[in-house]
C-alpha cells in the first residue's frame, strides 16, 4: 500500500503507482464549506475535505501582509504548515509567486508588460528582488519539512506567452534557473505552474531541471498526450481536468472515455490528476468526486 506521499514521489520519479495520484493546486474555503456544510474552515475541515476527495497532495499558499508589496520572508504566514507536514500523510507543496505575479500585482498589468521596453533596469531589479525572496523563502520552507515547491507564475494566456521568448530568455528564464538550482539544492521537488499556453518555453523549463508542470489546459492548446509523448520521461504532468470535462462527463460515454484517458496517462507514469483551475465556488464538485473515485 502506497501512502500518499510515496505515491507522489513515485509519480515525480516516473515510477509505477498503485492508483492514480491526485492533487489540487488550490481549494477555496467556499467549496469546503459547501461540501462539509460547515460555517468556518480550519485545519480539521480541510483535512476532512482532502480525505473525502482522496487527494494525495496538500498545497499551501502564502498569506502576505500586503499583496501589493514584496514582503520580507519572515512576514509571510503559511497557515498550519507544520501540522500538514508533521501530522498528515500528504505530499506537501508550498506555492510561491514568480516575477510575473509580483510584477502585475505591484505595478499593474500594462506597466509590468511594457517594463522590458521602457525600463529594463527596473525589471532587472524586480527580478532580483523576487529571486532573493523565493530562494530565502524556499530555504525556510525546506527547513520546516515541505516536500515540494511550486513556482507559480502566469506567464501565458490561451494564445501563448504574454511576452516573447526573447524577453523570457533574457530576464525570466535565467532567474528561474538560478531559483531552481538553489531551491532544488535544499532537497525539495520543484514544479512550475502557469495558466495558458506555455508550450514555447517547455524545453527551457526542462533544461532548468523542473521536475513537473501544473496546468495542462487543452483549451489553451496544451495537449497532455503530446506533452507526455514529447517530454513524459523528463516531466511529471499534473492537471488536465477542465470545467468542460466536468460538464461533459454527465454523458456516460464521455465519462468512460475520460476515465480511460486518465488511466492511459497514468499507465505511462509521471502523471498526477487534478483540475487545471483548482477548486472554486461553482465547480461541479459532485462530478469531480465521481471521476476521482471511479478512476481508482
Amino acid at each position: 500500500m502506497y501512502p500518499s506521499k510515496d505515491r507522489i514521489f513515485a509519480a515525480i520519479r516516473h515510477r509505477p503507482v498503485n492508483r492514480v495520484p491526485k492533487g489540487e493546486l488550490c481549494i477555496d474555503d467556499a467549496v469546503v464549506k459547501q461540501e462539509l456544510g460547515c460555517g468556518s474552515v480550519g485545519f480539521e475541515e480541510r483535512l476532512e475535505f482532502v480525505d473525502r476527495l482522496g487527494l494525495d497532495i496538500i498545497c499551501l499558499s502564502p498569506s502576505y501582509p500586503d499583496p501589493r508589496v514584496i514582503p520580507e520572508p519572515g512576514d509571510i504566514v503559511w497557515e498550519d504548515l507544520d501540522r500538514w507536514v508533521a501530522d498528515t500523510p500528504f505530499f506537501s507543496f508550498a506555492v510561491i509567486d514568480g516575477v510575473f505575479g509580483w510584477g502585475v500585482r505591484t505595478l499593474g498589468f500594462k506597466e509590468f508588460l511594457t517594463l522590458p521596453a521602457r525600463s529594463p533596469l527596473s525589471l532587472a531589479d524586480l527580478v532580483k528582488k523576487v529571486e532573493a525572496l523565493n530562494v530565502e523563502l524556499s530555504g525556510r520552507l525546506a527547513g520546516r519539512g515541505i516536500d515540494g515547491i511550486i513556482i507559480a507564475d502566469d506567464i501565458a494566456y490561451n494564445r501563448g506567452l504574454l511576452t516573447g521568448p526573447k524577453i523570457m530568455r533574457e530576464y525570466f528564464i535565467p532567474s528561474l534557473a538560478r531559483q531552481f538550482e538553489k531551491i532544488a539544492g535544499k532537497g525539495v521537488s520543484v514544479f512550475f505552474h502557469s495558466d495558458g499556453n506555455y508550450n514555447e518555453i517547455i524545453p527551457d523549463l526542462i533544461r532548468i531541471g523542473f521536475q513537473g508542470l501544473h496546468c495542462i489546459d487543452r483549451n489553451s492548446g496544451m495537449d497532455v498526450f503530446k506533452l507526455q509523448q514529447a517530454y513524459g520521461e523528463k516531466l511529471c504532468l499534473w492537471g488536465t481536468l477542465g470545467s468542460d470535462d466536468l460538464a461533459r462527463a454527465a454523458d456516460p460515454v464521455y465519462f468512460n472515455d475520460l476515465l480511460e484517458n486518465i488511466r492511459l496517462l497514468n499507465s505511462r507514469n509521471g502523471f498526477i490528476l487534478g483540475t487545471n483551475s483548482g477548486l472554486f465556488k461553482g465547480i461541479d464538485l459532485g462530478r469531480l468526486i465521481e471521476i476521482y473515485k471511479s478512476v481508482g
Partner: protein
Amino acid sequence: MKDDLIIAMADLDEERALALVKEKLKAGETAFEIVEQCRKGVEIVGQRYSEGIYYLSDLIMSEEIFRGVMEIVEPHFPQEITEHGTKIIMGTIEGDIHDLGKNIVTYLLRSVGFNVIDLGVDVPPERFIKAIKETGASILGICVLLTFCIGSIKKVVDLLKETGLRDDVVVVLGGYPVNQLIKEYTGADYYANDAARGLEIFKQISLEKDKRR
C-alpha cells in the same frame, strides 16, 4: 519620408514615434494624417501578432505608444461641438482590454462633432444596455480584438432584442478580426476594420437618422 512613422509604430520604437509626431506637426501635417499613419503602423503590429511574431506585451506596448501619440496630437484636432452632437455609446467588449481601436475612433468621432460616451474596456453586455437606456443613444459601437470575446457581442445584440431596443439602436462592430461572418453571427448592423472606415459608417448612420427625423 511618409512611411517613417508607420515603421516606428510597427517596430514599437516609442522614442522615435513620438519624436516623429512632433516633427510632423511642426511641418504642418494634420492631426488626422498623423493618426492615420499611426493606425497603419498599429495595423502592422496586429498582423505580426496574428502571425505569432509579436506577443500580447507587444500589442500592449503599441497601445501605450499610441496613447502617447494621442496626447500630443489631440489639441491639434479641430474641435467641434460635442455636447449636442449625435450620441454614440462606445466600448470594448467584456473579456477584452484592448482600447486602442476604440480610442482612435472615439477621438475621430468627437473631432467631427459626435457626442461619444466611452464606457471603457471589458464592458459587460448588460452595461451597454444600461448606458443606452440612460442616455437614449441610438448608435452603439463595440470594439473587439480577441476573437473568443465575440460571443459576448452576440449577447449584447440579443439583450437589445430582449429589452425591445433593437429597432432603435444601430450596432457597429470595430476591430481587427471583425468581418461579414462575425457581423451576421452577432446580429450587428455594420462592421469596420479601420478607424477611417468606422468614421464614415458612423457619419452615414447619423445622416440617415437625421433624414428620418
